[in-house]
């Protein structure tokens, strides 16, 4: 840090701009992007087959009419929580350390929400009429059915996606203008020029920019809480034992931030190494993120405990049967894996040495990612598999196409991410400068 204080700010931003404006791409990028594209191709095949034959290519059945698609949706949307949380909530509570990671995590949020948003449409029996879920004037004179949580989902997710996109793009504008000014080629200047919407960096621009940025941050903060609350209502509003629970909204929000931060760590650790951005993604960042993982992990653990407690406290035959099935029935191996991944392993984060050991932290984050996917899998399928009528009970399992779609969605996510780090500044340059200026000023006054 001390070294960076002495060098000119422009040198720092130069290092952020360098990967964008340079000619050619590094080998690791080309290989990574090619792999991502290959996975994306797999995704497209899976989706094409899905659209041709119907959702019957998946493992869903009666009674488990929701499966991988909904699990993936909830998981991706959960990941999409970290970005907004870092950008908006941490901005509002003046956590300056967020500055160098917020741009990247916002992008991650957007791409995760894009993946998440696909799944509810893919999972429809007739995806070509998905727009019937939108309230729009039509010749059928039909409104959607406003009592359905799925409709609330549509509003919640689309609002979240819109606000996240605006927030992300707004933050990009000054940096795009900077790129426009530094770009060596005419075509780059034109593209960045158009994208920067005529930003000149004058003081009036900055004043309006900051007001709007703060406003959007406030709005996004509310959405961080609302989106996963509403997603959880998909389950909580139903009468399915194991879903019908009032603990779901806070429990889902905590789980979302938990998994979102895990994904941020999973991505930032390799990025830091590949770009040599140790000065931006400092150990302090990872230490703080480790703490957040620990806190949200504890909340999630508390959620598990309370869910189990209320099941038995309710005295309800169906709820108890469901919980018994998870604790010691056929879902026990999965359930206890979840406890291990999401409750036991994160306890290591109590130790600062582990939080600052990037390999260790990275491994813990991956374990949490897997654990959170499994958690959603157990919630969705175990409850449906065995609800009220034993005559309808059946075991669920995913098919080849279920896995292909899940793995393929990583292809979409990673392709977007690779494009992003190659074409746009992955770190907010103007905020870095701002922070440095602020520090410099503080140094002067002191």
């Amino acid at each position: 840090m001390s070294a960076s204080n002495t060098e000119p700010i422009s040198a720092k931003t130069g290092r952020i701009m360098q990967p964008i404006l340079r000619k050619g791409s590094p080998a690791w990028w080309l290989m990574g992007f090619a792999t991502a594209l290959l996975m994306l191709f797999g995704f497209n095949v899976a989706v094409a087959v899905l659209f041709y034959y119907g959702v019957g290519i998946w493992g869903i059945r009666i009674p488990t009419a929701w499966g991988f698609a909904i699990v993936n949706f909830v998981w991706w949307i959960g990941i999409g929580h970290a970005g907004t949380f870092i950008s908006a909530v941490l901005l509002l509570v003046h956590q300056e350390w967020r500055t160098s990671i917020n741009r990247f995590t916002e992008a991650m949020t957007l791409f995760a929400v894009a993946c998440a948003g696909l799944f509810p449409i893919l999972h429809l029996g007739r995806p070509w009429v998905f727009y019937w879920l939108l309230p729009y004037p039509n010749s059928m004179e039909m409104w959607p059915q406003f009592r359905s949580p799925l409709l609330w989902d549509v509003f919640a997710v689309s609002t979240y996606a819109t606000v996240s996109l605006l927030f992300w793009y707004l933050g990009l504008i000054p940096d795009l203008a900077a790129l426009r000014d530094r770009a060596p080629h005419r075509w780059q200047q034109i593209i960045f020029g158009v994208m920067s919407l005529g930003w000149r960096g004058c003081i009036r621009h900055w004043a309006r920019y900051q007001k709007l940025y703060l406003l959007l941050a406030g709005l996004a903060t509310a959405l961080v809480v609302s989106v996963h609350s509403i997603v959880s209502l998909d389950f909580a509003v139903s009468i399915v034992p194991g879903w019908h629970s009032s603990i779901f909204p806070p429990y889902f929000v905590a789980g979302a931030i938990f998994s979102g931060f895990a994904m941020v760590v999973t991505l930032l650790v390799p990025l830091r190494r590949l770009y040599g951005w140790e000065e931006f993604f400092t150990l302090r960042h990872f230490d703080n993120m480790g703490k957040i993982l620990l806190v949200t992990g504890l909340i999630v653990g508390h959620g598990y405990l309370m869910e189990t407690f209320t099941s038995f406290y309710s005295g309800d035959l169906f709820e108890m049967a469901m919980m018994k099935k998870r604790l010691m029935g056929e879902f026990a191996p999965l359930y206890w894996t979840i406890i291990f991944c999401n409750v036991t392993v994160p306890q290591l984060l109590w130790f600062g040495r582990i939080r600052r050991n990037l390999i260790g932290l990275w491994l813990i984050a991956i374990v949490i990612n897997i654990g959170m996917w499994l958690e959603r899998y157990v919630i969705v399928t175990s409850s449906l598999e065995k609800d009220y009528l034993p005559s309808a009970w059946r075991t669920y399992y995913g098919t080849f196409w279920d896995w292909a779609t899940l793995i393929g969605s990583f292809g979409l996510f990673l392709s977007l991410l690779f494009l992003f780090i190659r074409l746009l500044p992955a770190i907010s340059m103007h905020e870095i400068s701002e922070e440095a200026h602020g520090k410099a000023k503080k140094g002067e006054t002191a």
Partner: protein
Amino acid sequence: MGASIALAGLNGCMRPPEQKIVPYTQQPEKLVPGRPLHYATTIRINGHPRGVVVTQNEGRPTHIAGNPLHPLSLGAADVWTTASLLDLYDPDRLQSVLRQGSASSWEAFEQVFASLRDEFLKSGGAGFYLLTPPLYSPTELRLIGRILAALPQVRWYVHDPIDSTTALEDRFDLASADVIFALESDFLYDRPDSLALIRAFSKRRVTDDGKSWNRLYVAESCPTITGVKADHRFVVPPQEFDELAAALLASLQGNSAKDNRWPWLDALTDDLRHHSGRSILMAGRSASDFVRHAISSANTLLGNAGTTLLPTVPSEGPQPQGTLADLVLPMSRREVRTLVMLGVNPVFDAASDFSFAELLAQVPTSICHTFYTNETSQKCSWTIHAAHDLEAWGDTKSCDGTLSIAQPLIAPLYDGKSTIEILSLIAEEVPRPGYDLARETWQQTVRDPSTFEAEWHRWLRDGVVHLPSTAPSTASFALQPPSSSPKSTASTNSLQSIWLCFRPSAAQWDGRHANNGWLQELPDPITKLTWDNAALFSPASATLLKVKDGDVVTLHVNGFKIDAPILVVPGHADHCITLPLGYGRIVSGQIGTSVGINAYLLRSSDALWHIPIDDIERKGSTHPLARTQEHFRMEGRDLLHVARVDNSPETPAPPAPEQPLPSLYPDFKYEGHKWALSINLNSCVGCNACIIACQSENNIPVVGKDQVLFGREMQWIRVDRYFQGDADSPRTHFQPVTCMQCEDAPCEVVCPVAATQHDDEGLNTMVYNRCVGTRYCSNNCPYKVRRFNFLFYNADIPESQRLRLNPNVTIRSRGVMEKCTYCVQRIEEARIGALREHRPLKGTDITTACQAACPAEAIVFGDLSDPDSIVSRNRKKPGHYAMLEELNTKPRTTYLEKRINPNPALEPPSSASNPQPI
């Protein structure tokens, strides 16, 4: 994503195929497009007639229901009757005459046959053999008589792999039977008169006060629906049947010998003796001569002849020379020069020791008349395609003597020939059409020829022939005099070996229904297995052999062996394995080929029903078994109420909620009708008739084994089956489940596009066009009655099968949810009828398909706003309950509890205070 949506759009815009529509130049009489016609006729199911009423839309038969005027149908229809419609339009049915397997023509056959016939005329028919199923049709028998008159050397044999004994001669009057004992007899399912027996049986079990109830005892090795219905079901392995029958007879004669294998025998004998003349004992078709003899002796002893045991119907006309066993000898001696086989498939279903296929290969000219290509027709020089019963004239005689005429509903789709037309070809110089042949028979029965036309039309209209009573002058009973010392054939140490038992399968019977998708996908009543048969094991035997469901074992019997997957059936006897017949067809259509295992390979002519197994070995492989229900216990849930006739509960009944539970939503207000369905679990015998009737009425697709394995069967009504008590001898219960049409339906609130709606008569309607397929409704349905088109199951309905479809019911496309509608199309049809006649619509105007088919009258549809309707009255009965009432969904489909009438001497009422956990 954009590309994905564009792709979806392409898929979504499907236009109907362009077709030319040609109007009638001459409007056929009585044919109003859109208004179905109904005709009474008779079709033959498994060789025996069923009186039916066929719905015909614009000339196409679209639904088969029972004929209320036929005494053996009484308006109900069993699974095979209704499913027979599917065969009519089956694209796989034989469509032309085949010569050595390649297409030929009827004319070519006629020419060849005429010269053949001329040859035989010279020799009086020596070397000409005829093999048919047992024939009951007056015209068929008349033509056989003519053949035998014209060609006296012709030999006629009959073959039926199932009804090869004379067991069907017994006839019972269950209406006057107070105590029934059935030994290995599934009389509620597998007899030609089962529909009438179910009706008579359940009529004696409906009163609320327990008066005039009958009591059923069943001793059997493998659970059947009759055993499930029994008040006392005793698990007895087939090795012990002879001894049991002897002990029972001895006990009835007063020589009670205590045998700890049957501690219940004395109580049973007391009950039977107490109801002398009002009791009945019966043995199934697999019973040995000894058992049959003992049972009839017991009936004689008890004085049941003439009261509950009815006189046999004398057989008329020519008698066959014998059965397949008798035909084998002349075939092996190469005396058979021409063999004509009508509607039989001995290459598949003959006992394996006959080696019938090899014998058939030695016959110079073999002619097979069959509806489908089969194992036999493939080996014949000529194959004649048969007409469906709905395409041909004919007549039949039921096992109770009821005569009826079969009239065609549609011209033969592929110019198939009926049995009588083939017989006419053999019997007569100039073969005549079926219409003339049938009429000729009946003209002879009328004294005054001038009244014939009127009578004929009346018979056709009613579907039953009314002739002056021709009761046999001397009542004869299928009885033997009581014998004091019958000889048992069973060895005393019989339990040392494991026996293999054969039985006709519940859906495929002897294998003739193999290409019928509805029947292949029909779950077995007990095992809920579809698309397969399996070796049925008792839980103890499975534990002993260390096998579990789906494990393949090799069964060695008499030097033959087959590999069979096993299935554990609670309540199955130890020391025996049951293997249903009728599966494993090698030559059938696209649907029926290679489904299940062929049990006939192990059957030998001297042991048609039970045979000791030499060895069983585990193969180590497994075979997936597609079952529609995988969990058999109620897990302590309040789903099915069982009580004794004296109203003491058999299952723990939770206290009913005192006041209506609170609801977030206001109650719906109804101005007109409030439709409801009442299902009487007490009457239901679990025969599955409702499932197939619903499938036919509502255009429900067949999805195939791989989809059933995924739990995607589409049947709108299902019959749940639960076991209660210990697995060796559980009490079994059936529960038909339709859509509950909940008042506060959980499915309605969660649909984001309002595709499932509450209508103003309380139906929970499904708007297919609006459905986007989120499947949330199914998740939120506690009864899991919703069915989803996971794939485009209706995509490839063959052209001919489209004629079958009910024009009033939408064909569902892929990606939409569907479920029981209470046959809303029938409600609307009745409403239109009432409007036209300017009268109010009543609940009794409407009969749902399941209700119409139900032989036990367990399902009743009606209007709750009419306080006198049966559904309203049922709701006030003591045993009335709604499933999962505590969820406050307020179902419109409700149940009347199941009642049992156990013998207090065997199950003292005190045990009822400790109801068994379920």
